[in-house]
């Protein structure tokens, strides 16, 4: 399946992906209104290592996802390879945050769990982090791994 991959040699560390992610999932049409003066809660995190190398981390859509197995609300499932959260069922217990080995499930502004769902449930159509990356450092592609 297609997944999001990063090319850290191209990452500028500008964090635009975090803003594009927060905007794409805000449900709003104006980026300024959606984000200005607000603490953003993106589903992708830019990290910087000890050598100053930057790259973005988002859900790996694991082949054997421990978040799905651990969800006490039956709210996380895998459909056609994409791991998604049913927000009507999530009660915000954050067990998924406790078990995700890559730190890719995070709290949303209301205290419930959220994670990258490849922009399949918003109006963006394709991952906003990929579309908006100014240096092509985030790609959405098939790498042919066994599922």
């Amino acid at each position, binding site marked *: 399946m297609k997944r999001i991959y990063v090319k850290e040699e191209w990452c500028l560390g500008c964090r635009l992906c975090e803003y594009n992610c927060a905007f794409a999932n805000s449900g709003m049409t104006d980026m300024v209104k959606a984000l200005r003066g607000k603490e953003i809660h993106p589903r992708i995190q830019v990290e910087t290592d000890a050598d100053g190398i930057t790259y973005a*981390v988002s859900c*790996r859509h694991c082949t054997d996802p421990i978040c799905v*197995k651990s969800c006490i609300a039956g709210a996380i499932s895998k459909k056609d390879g994409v791991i998604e959260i049913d927000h009507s069922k999530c009660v915000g217990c*954050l*067990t998924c945050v406790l078990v995700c*080995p*890559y*730190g890719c499930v995070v709290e949303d502004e209301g205290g419930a769990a959220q994670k990258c769902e490849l922009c399949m449930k918003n109006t963006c159509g394709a991952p906003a982090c990929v579309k908006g990356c100014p240096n092509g450092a985030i790609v959405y592609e098939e790498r042919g791994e066994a599922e």
Partner: protein
Amino acid sequence: MKQYVIIGNGAAAAGCIEGIRAVDTAGSITVISAEQHPVYCRPLISYYLQHKTDLQRMRYRSETFYADNHVSVAFGRTAIEISADTKEITLDSGEIIAYDALCVCTGSSPFVPPMQGLETVEKQFAFMTVDDALAIEQAVTPESNVLIIGAGLIGLKCAEGLHGRAGSITVCDLAPRVLSSILDDKCAAMMQKHLEANGIRFLLGTSAKEFRGSKAVMQSGETVDFDVLVLAVGVRANTALVKNAGGDVNRGILTDDACKTSLPDVYAAGDCTEYHDISSDSVKVMALMPNAYMQGHTAGVNMAGGAAVFDNAIPMNSIGFFGLHCHTAGTQPDGCEMYEEADETHIKRLFVKNDRLTGFMLIGHMHRTGIYTALIRNQTPLSSVDFARLRIEPQLAAMGADYREHVLKGAV
């Protein structure tokens, strides 16, 4: 065609069904469900009382789950005997069901210590099932004074659930602190303060020694007037079926990494079992829903002829009260070193021994905690990562370039 039988209908049973069907789509599966409900999210009963979910959304799986997986469920039935020699179980109805592979997912039952005069209490409840929650909902009015015996996970979630529904809520526990099974003194004190700020009253280091109708006499001599009593002292694993069949049990049913019991073709999963905790290298009852699912899934795969192991179990809890969250995992061994951060609104305590993270307690700030949990679960040598950075903030950046490449450049 193989015949699979599962005794119990909770998360472990659901995991078992999905594990079997990952390998064998043809065999028959029969589930024996004491409760009349399809599998539901047991820990959500407190969220139900808080109006944060409802009976429909509390279902653990879709309405077509049993049909999709070709499972037949005997609702309202309990198994009373396992005959390991003839590979049959007997139900309370007298019906006998043969199995090729059996999974025991019988869960646990509330433990009620002998307390004088308990029979004089008119409205008394456990808080383990959705039926308990519905009964409590019926019994509690805005004028009710609720007394909860037990300041553990179940008692405190019940207290939170009843907040706003009852006139007053008092929680007592023999232990000197709240959540004594998962928090140390300092962390427990922070949580207690927050609960008290939300109107929960505590009587700690004491419990009820006698009940007289609607009055409890504490060991300390104090009396508490109440209308509704919730008994949340503790739970006991339901081991009798396996024990009576000659299987090995201790405090729970003993299972190996394949989730097998000592009886041939009999597996067990969930709160009825005890199993290996790699963080403390000891065998214990870890009654945790995520582990129950993973045990059930492992058992199911193996029952159907696959090869699965659950060999990295650790205790872990994610629990919050009135907006203050807490994550704990692993163990705090004797002689460990502790890394600590603490202020008014959060605590982080990481426990390190022999170059490994063995456990942690976090309150108030829950960002990317799973990176810590993975260090415990994978028993990662801390000398192989940049722990000086990791302990400040969980991040893949401190895990080494090879690990990062493995995680971010291919499927994991």
